[in-house]
């Protein structure tokens, strides 16, 4: 029993600035939930409120069914991994990991068993006698995780644990964290600003912005069915293209009129959904991976576009091309074999079954 419930959580600072504006979130037992969003969106504050390191201005937090609003961090039965590891520099790796158990007066043999077991899981057994100074960033991160694992807490809290690592190590540690969660299966709340981390680790992703939750859902749902323009733009890399367009009625069907007189037919399956917005200005959202070269064999629900690239970025496994469409930046993903040159017309197809329409007044995805 270690579900986490946040009900109407508000965090306001002196001067009335609200970092978190009344969020509700239910995290199930064993679930891995990632809070993601840009800097200042309130994700770390939320995590710190769950940990008990920040006071809640109003609302309730329950861990394992117990209201913990007024319970200090030490009695919440949580473990936290910090961004800069927060290892005690004067203690050895073993002592760092054993510290929490020692304070809770566990028998020495049990402490030893748990520390060695965690060290084995994290592959840090040879480092147990070292001081944190003698460890690399990745090893320190493992020790910080080990310190959390040995406690066998109800909930793991991770506060941007990978942001201090280089890109390669980050990918490696991401996999490690996922493996550890699969092994220990403890309820986990993980904060990051990196949407790739969020997508790869989470059972459910919570996208936050300006102190509110924009959308909660499994990674694929957020990718394919974003609820708002913010989520559509935040999830996915490179981010989704948003092109101003007009939704027009044309003999029973709908079509999008884009700048440069580009006209794209809306798939028949979406007609009923978009019909009420016919004749209105909308934002046409399409991911770069759905705006590709016209080599595709299955051309159902695709629409041709010809554009002149401004910038070409060969990435090896793919090539990104960037255009300007009436002042709007647009990106497309091409097969690396496709010949493309700056300024030369390039034939692309838009996979219209993957399109999104956004109401520019409400920023909601239609």
């Amino acid at each position, binding site marked *: 029993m270690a579900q986490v419930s946040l009900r109407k959580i508000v965090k306001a600072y002196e001067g009335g600035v609200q970092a978190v504006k009344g969020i509700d979130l239910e995290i199930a037992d064993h679930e891995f939930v990632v809070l993601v969003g840009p800097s200042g969106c309130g994700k770390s504050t939320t995590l710190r409120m769950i940990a008990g390191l920040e006071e809640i201005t109003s609302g309730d937090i329950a861990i394992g069914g117990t209201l913990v609003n007024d319970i200090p961090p*030490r009695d919440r039965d949580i473990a*936290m991994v*910090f961004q*800069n590891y927060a290892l*005690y*520099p004067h203690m050895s790796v073993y002592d760092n990991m054993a510290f*929490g158990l020692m304070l809770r007066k566990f028998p020495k043999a049990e402490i030893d068993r748990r520390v060695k077991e965690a060290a084995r899981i994290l592959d840090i057994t040879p480092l147990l006698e070292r001081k944190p100074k003698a460890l690399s960033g990745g090893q320190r991160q493992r020790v910080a995780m080990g310190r959390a694992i040995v406690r066998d807490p109800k909930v793991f809290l991770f506060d941007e644990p990978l942001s201090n690592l280089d890109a390669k190590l980050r990918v490696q540690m991401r996999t490690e964290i996922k493996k550890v969660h699969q092994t220990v299966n403890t309820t986990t709340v993980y904060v990051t600003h990196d949407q790739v981390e969020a997508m790869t680790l989470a059972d459910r992703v919570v996208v936050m912005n300006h102190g509110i939750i924009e959308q909660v859902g499994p990674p694929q749902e957020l990718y394919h069915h974003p609820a708002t323009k913010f989520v559509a733009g935040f999830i996915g890399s490179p981010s989704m293209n948003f092109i101003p367009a007009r939704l027009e009625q044309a003999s029973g069907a709908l079509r999008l009129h884009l700048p440069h007189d580009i006209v794209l037919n809306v798939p028949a399956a979406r007609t009923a959904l978009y019909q009420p917005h016919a004749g209105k200005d909308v934002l046409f959202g399409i991911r770069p991976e759905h705006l590709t070269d016209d080599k595709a064999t299955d051309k159902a629900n695709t629409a041709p576009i010809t554009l002149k690239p401004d910038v070409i970025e060969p990435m090896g496994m793919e090539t990104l091309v960037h255009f300007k469409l009436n002042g709007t930046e647009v990106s497309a993903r091409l097969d690396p074999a496709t010949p493309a040159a700056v300024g030369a017309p390039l034939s692309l197809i838009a996979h219209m079954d993957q399109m999104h329409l956004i109401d520019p007044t409400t920023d909601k995805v239609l």
Partner: protein
Amino acid sequence: MAADASMAPPMTPAPGSGRASTLQRLARRRSSIAVLMTTPLLVVLLGLVAYPAGYGIYLSTLNRRMTGFMEAEWLPNGLGNFEILFESETFWAVALQSCIFAITAVILKALIGFWLAHMLNDIPAKGQRKWRGMLLIPWVIPPALSTLGWWWMFDPSYSSINWLFQVVGIAEVPWLGEKWWARLSIIIVNVWYGAPFFMIMYLAALKSVPEQLYEAAAIDGASSWQRLRYVTLPMMANIISITVLFSLIVTFSNYDIVRVLTNGGPRDLTHVFASYAFQVGILSGNIPRGAAVSLFMFPILAICAFFVLRGVTRRNKEQM
């Protein structure tokens, strides 16, 4: 190849450039620059520390009239002053009083400084400056002046402290007239003067402990006492050691407070090494013996410094 060679810069040095380049090379060497930059300090240290120390050692070997080496019975000739001191009861009383005074005062200063630093650290930043400034006042007033103020407060006839005691019904205290009260008075004044130094050092150390370590400890289950025991103290260990060592040196060689407050009395029982050395060397006119007294501080402090600095180096190696 020929074309390449013709494009290469001329290798023959210009006349006179050999010496210039040697000088330039010398100037560019980091070690030369380091020596150059530290020379003024080295000159000052040699002039104000090494020379007086060496001369002090030389003086301590002379006889009273400074006409030759002091003869000794069971020590090598020249160490006669030390022999006399070893056999003098007063000297051992001074050594004991120096140790009691320095150790007690340093411990009290460290404890009070630590407590004050913690109190200050918990005050919000806005009000902290005001309190910090006020608490530093004792340390910035010249001790000879402030000790005069204390002397007046301890005065047997006009003691304001005794007057206060009278008001609340406590018996008067012979602050400077009785051995242990006089010793305590000296310690009180020294602690009053020196505690702000500990406070400011500890406050700086406290501020340098990363907040996340406390948060990690809080989550690990540490109470506030355990956070102090397992996070604050080990993280401050180096600053505490260095501050204690520095203060021990300064307190051990303290002169002005004893001189102004008790002048060594009653019956030479509040003398410390420095004030006793002054009395023997200057007031009694036996400069060599005075020098010998003052030299006794050196081995005691050297041993302390060795152990403290060894600990600091070890911790630095492990943690930094």
